[in-house]
């Protein structure tokens, strides 16, 4: 039993944090928000240090790490609200490594490792958002698959060269590998709360049958989708840990620096108790997110662990960023000051993750079954 990071993990964590701290300056992030929302210069820097390659197996040019190492890198991203599609690359690498056919691995993993491939994952559904029951329909006919359906708000879809799309293929869930710029895919970019580039994806196209994840490799499509979903939740939870941390760091510096009634704000317990609550919540987020990532990386049943981490990541982060925003007073509302960005990320990621209530319901179902 050891909750400490290994030396390798510590190095990855420090390296990622260092890149994000150096690259994701407030000025840069602000400039990227005003352009297309994707910091390609930072993306390059990350690639130079092998961050996108973390979870790509060694034979395809990566380091062969797993969900824990990805989570550590993502915490650094969240800490600096850096606008790059890192979790998408990481989760796609793991999905291809675990479930992809040899041909699919050879086709996609090297590009992910070099960061030339930019990935979108179309998890969200309209309405009930039941990821395990995709509303996009796939129909096999003569070696090809007809894909029809709509996916709202797909992160980075307009920048992606590869989209992972859950589909109900002839009645069973599968993951399709789709070129988001292929004919038959209509992308409608949408404005989002935290300025992340997203697009609605309307699909009406044929793809080869070997574009279904794991085609011919004898995999269980439902398990592949579940794994994709659980790794996505664990990764988003890791980003949220960083977001919560970052918002608290700004808050601590605001409270220490600003004087009111002849004392620093930090001398008023009403502010410090609230900030301390945020710290406690962040630690709960951190240990549950690390545990979920670890269980996934070991290949254990992680349904309960992922649900717990996702619950904290959704509920906890909202609490922390709301408190941080409030504790900044008027200055928090001014978008020239960076704290609002943490609020927007925290809220946005909670929406991507799914509501705390939904995760509790999943957990409740798991409890009832045991």
């Amino acid at each position, binding site marked *: 039993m050891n909750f400490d990071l290994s030396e390798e993990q510590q190095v990855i964590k420090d390296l990622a944090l260092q890149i994000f701290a150096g690259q994701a300056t407030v000025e840069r992030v602000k400039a990227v928000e005003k352009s297309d929302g994707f910091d390609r210069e930072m993306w390059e820097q990350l690639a130079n240090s092998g961050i996108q390659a973390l979870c790509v197996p060694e034979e395809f040019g990566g380091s062969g790490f797993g969900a824990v190492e990805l989570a550590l890198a993502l915490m650094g991203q969240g800490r600096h609200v850096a606008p790059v599609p890192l979790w998408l690359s990481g989760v796609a690498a793991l999905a291809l490594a675990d479930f992809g056919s040899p041909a699919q691995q050879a086709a996609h993993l090297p590009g992910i490792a070099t960061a030339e491939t930019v990935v979108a994952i179309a998890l969200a559904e*309209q309405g*009930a958002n039941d990821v395990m029951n995709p509303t996009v329909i796939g129909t096999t006919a003569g070696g090809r698959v007809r894909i029809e359906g709509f996916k709202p*708000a797909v992160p980075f879809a307009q920048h992606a060269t590869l989209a992972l799309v859950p589909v109900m293929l002839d009645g069973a869930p599968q993951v399709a590998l789709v070129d988001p710029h292929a004919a038959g895919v209509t992308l409608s970019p949408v404005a989002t709360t935290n300025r992340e580039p*997203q697009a609605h994806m309307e699909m009406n196209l044929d793809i080869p049958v070997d574009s279904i994840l794991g085609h011919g490799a004898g995999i269980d499509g439902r398990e592949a989708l579940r794994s994709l979903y659980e790794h996505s939740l664990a990764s988003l939870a890791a980003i949220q840990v960083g977001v919560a941390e970052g918002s608290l760091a700004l808050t601590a510096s605001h409270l220490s620096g600003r004087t009111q*009634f002849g004392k620093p704000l930090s001398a008023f317990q009403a502010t410090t108790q609230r900030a301390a609550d945020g710290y406690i919540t962040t630690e709960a987020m951190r240990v549950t997110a690390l545990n979920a990532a670890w269980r996934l990386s070991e290949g254990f049943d992680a349904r309960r662990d992922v649900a717990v981490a996702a619950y904290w990541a959704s509920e906890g982060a*909202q609490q922390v960023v709301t408190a941080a*925003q409030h504790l900044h007073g008027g200055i928090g*509302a001014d978008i020239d000051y960076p704290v609002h960005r943490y609020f927007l990320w925290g809220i946005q990621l909670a929406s991507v993750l799914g509501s705390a209530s939904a995760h509790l319901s999943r957990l409740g179902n798991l409890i009832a079954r045991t």
Partner: protein
Amino acid sequence: MHIGDTPEEAAYRAEARAWLEAHATRKSDAHPGDSVDHTRDLAGHVQACRDWQRVLFDHGWAGITWPAQYGGKGASAIQAAIFNEEMAQFDVAVGTFAVSIGMVGPTLIAHGTPEQQHKHLAPILKGEEVWCQLFSEPGSGSDLASLGTRAVRDGDDWVVNGQKVWTSLGQYADYAILLARTDGDQPKHAGITYFILDMKSPGIEVRPITQITGVQHFNETFLTDVRIPNANVVGGPNEGWKVAQTTLANERNFIGSGGSWSASDLVDLAQRRGCAHDPHVRQRLAEAISRQETLKYLGFRMRTAMSQRRMPGPEMLTLKLAFANHWRLSAETAIGILGADAMLWGDDAADENQWGQHLLSQFAIRIGGGTDEIQHNIIAERGLGLPREPMPDKDLPWRSLNRVG
């Protein structure tokens, strides 16, 4: 105790409703809110507010609670509330006059000179004067009395230098109420003067702040050698703190009784989104209804007191906090109902992005008129009789304080 309209009140309500039906369009799916949306066209919204205020004035519905001698109707707070409840169901523009009618008017009525009252009260009611509030400064925050904008007497004028922030609609205002330091050797509360400032005076620069909501409702205001005639002092030199209390109390009451959206909008959202029967969503809706009912009765109690010309007591302070809390929780409930759609913003968002705007607006509500924390302190002191929190700097000369710019 009578929780509901008396026959007289019901008659007044019917009269108001009939007049509104004749002069405005009832809100509907086609007309969901202000016909000129302040989040999209702030200038147009301000003009629409001016126009509607003129209509109100011309038909005798302006300044309902103001004494008749100032152009008002001399009616009770309850009658005003009845009119506002009815008006909230119509697609009319009103927000711009919150400061002018809600705060400046009552302050001038209580503390202004006859000349000041004569000059401004009627134009305000007619929609001719939009006012803004130059109180907050970058370094002052909750500690408003620490403000550092200086006004120095020079002949018949005062010369003002300093910087203000969070000026609502400063870029459209005709006049401002301004707090400035006129004696730095007094303790901080004792050296402040309350001025009327003509916003067309030379030396005023207004710079809009882009808010988290994307709107430029607030501004920074820079004052450089701005001259104000001595006749524009309200309440006497160095007496400004007391005058400001009238303004701030009215601001709190205004915020606490504000908000034109209700828990039924949430119920409606849940129904449209097909999740009104989800037991967890249902529970959140029921909580929202419970909070809203509480606000309603807290509001009734406040208006009862105001109608009896009693100052709202400590129990009234709860209204603004309860309102801010309701606002936050209801917005969070809406975001939960929207699910993944809550990620969308602006034109791409559901329901004209009203839920996203609500979520972000919570912070302004929780700060305006005194932060949540300050309100809690006042409640502890006045509601529970706890001793006032010791403020070590309150008797020291302002000049000696360790301030941050």
